[in-house]
Structure formats: C-alpha cells, structure tokens
C-alpha cells in the first residue's frame, strides 16, 4: 500500500452538501469519500492505493481534477485497488456531482 497526499490552495467554490461515497474498493476500481471541511479554502486529497509507485500519475490526475472543479474547503479520501487514471477521474467527478447535485 502507498499513501499519497495532495493539497490545492485557494479553490473558488466551497461546495454545499453532505458527505458522499461513490465507487467500490474492488479490482480496478476505487471508492471516493468527499465531504465539506474547513481547510482555509483548500482542497485536500488523501489517496491510499494498492498500486505502489504511481505517484506522478496520481498527481497529474489530481491536478486535472482541481483544474476542472476548483473546489474549496473540501476533503477527499480515496481507497484504491488499481483503478486506471480514467476511472479515477470519472469517480472524482461522480463524487463532486453527487455531493453538489451536479452543479459545477
């Protein structure tokens, strides 16, 4: 297992809503827990993944995600079992949409 931490400062929008969990921890899949958190305008993402050594790929996927959503005051926690970058991106978008009701 490998644990990765990402923090993106100065997001634009603090999302309203209750904590949501999407996805399942199964082979090639992941679960994403998203919840509002007082983080001084930042978005923090913690990734625990069974696939060791893909930190650079995770960072690229997370940067893309942050560029898409610009979330503020949001905590995201991921349990991953080897999901591909495309699956990770889709799950992250699904998580945001389920918490915010689909609004950007």
């Amino acid at each position, binding site marked *: *297992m490998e644990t990765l931490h990402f923090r993106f400062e100065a997001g634009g929008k603090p999302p309203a809503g209750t*904590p949501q*969990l999407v996805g*399942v*921890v*199964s082979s090639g*899949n992941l*679960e994403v*827990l998203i*919840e509002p958190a007082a983080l001084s305008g930042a978005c923090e993402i913690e990734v*625990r*993944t*069974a696939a060791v050594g893909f930190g650079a790929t995770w960072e690229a996927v997370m940067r893309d995600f942050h560029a898409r959503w610009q979330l503020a005051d949001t905590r995201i*926690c991921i*349990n*991953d*079992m080897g999901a591909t970058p495309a699956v990770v991106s889709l799950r992250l978008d699904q998580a945001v949409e389920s918490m915010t009701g689909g609004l950007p």
Partner: protein
Amino acid sequence: MSSYLELSARQRIPHIFDAGSFAEFLPPAARVVSPHLAQLDAPVSFDDGVIVGRGLLDGRVVFGAAQEGGFMGGAVGEVHGAKLVGMLRRAVDEGAHAVLLLLESGGVRLHEANAGLIAVSEVMRAILDVRAAGIPVVALVGGANGCFGGMGITARCANSVVMSEEGRLAMSGPEVIETAHGVEEFDARDRALVWRTTGGKHRYLLGDCQALVADDTGAFRQAAIAAIAAAHQGEVALTLAELLAEQDMLARRLRDFGGQIEPMEVWRALGVPDPKAIPMLEADAFVALADNYRAGADAGASTGGR
C-alpha cells in the same frame, strides 16, 4: 425495470426502501474501517463492505443492511459483523416492524480469521434474537457474488429468503468444492452447472427460498414487503416445531435425492415434467410451474405460511 444484480449495495438501498427514508448508522465519513486489513497492508473500505441503518419500507420502520459484494466478495470481517450485530440489536431496542438483509457475501473474511468467524456466529445469534422479539427477518439474495459460507447459513436463519435466478445460495462455493474434491466431483467453470446447483430456481424447487423473483429491484421490493406481511401472520420466533419440520425436510431430501448427482435429476424426481426447460423460463412462468412440484411448499411455520 432496474437490475438488482448490477447495482452496488449502496445503490440498492434507495431502490428497496422507500426513497430517501434510509438513515445509515456509522456512515463512511465515520471511517470505522477494518484494523486487520491495514496490518496486512491490504486496502480498506470506509464502510467495511456493509451499509446498516433504518428506513421505511412501504411506510413502516424497517431496519436493514446491504453487503457490498465488490469489496472482498462481501466477506464478513470483525467491523462488518459488528455493524450487522449492532443494527440487529437496535432493531430490537426500537421495536422495528422488520429487518431486511440484502446479502451478498462469500462468508467469513479469511484475512480476519477467528474475528470473522466469531462475527458471523454473533450475526446468527442476533438474527434469532430479533425473531424472538417478534420481529421478522427477511433476506434478499440477488447479487453476483451469491451468498455462501457462514452467510449462507445466516440467510437461512431468516424467516424467509427471496432470491432471483441469478442469486446463489449455498455453503461451499463452486471453487471450494472443486479444490477439495476434484473437477470430476464439480466443475466450477461450468457456469450452467453452478447455477443449476446453487441458483435461485434450484433453491426455490428445493424449498430453501420462499420467493423467486426476476432480477429487478421493484420485484425484490414487492417480494420483501409480501414476505414481511406473511411472516407477521405466523410465528415469527424460531420454534422447536419449526426446527423439527426443517430436520424432517432435510432427511426427506437426503432420502429422495441423496443418490442424484445432477440438479435436473432432482427436478425430475420432484415431478417436473421437462427439467431441461427450467433454466430458460422467465421468473413468473417458472414460479407458476414450480409451485406444483416444489419441496417445502407445505412447511408452514418457517415461511410464515407460504
């Protein structure tokens, strides 16, 4: 029409319970995860593979659980089991109308060894306590991972079991049997054989499940409502008479079918005129046919008179 099989456990909840009514105990944000898996450097899940809580079913307060077959095959670890037991005990404390278990599990989570075994036995005891309090327990089995091992036994501790053809209910899974006794005994890759042996239609014909529905969330929901209503008509608690009737049924099964090695022979022995046609029948047509021949249809108490 919405497939029950294809949904995750978390997605099934709002389809089965009244929409928006389910309140989860220990939700994922509480992060009550398995301590054992982390020690083994294995991935954890924020709900440990089970959702427990309280909702409304047809307007009545029904407690429930849904196991996630995608996470470690729905296997029961210490936290997973403790969540089930806690929900069951609270159902008694709060006088629930019923408990509904959406089961999908390979049984004990072997990573957690004795803790998982103890957890499953505690779940069984808690289910019988719920029934002793006059609260019916109904199990739904329709997930891709089936319901095996300790959870197979657990399902049969319920007042009634509702299955789809795609659902499977058994003790040892196909691969376990093949590994232990060889491919001549059981070919786990023969999917038609696996479903003939463990699938919902066979269980319905043998009397191990009390309702057989299409793979549809609406059908499962209606069958759950009907099973709870039927259970309330009879003796909810497990009785000695029910255990003796079950023992008789099993003894008859062994006597009548103990020499059969193929489920279709069992169906023929039950009187089904064209056993080969059974796997191709839609749920409604199958039930209409099977009700003329199925075993256990007259075993009243355990099934609330069905």
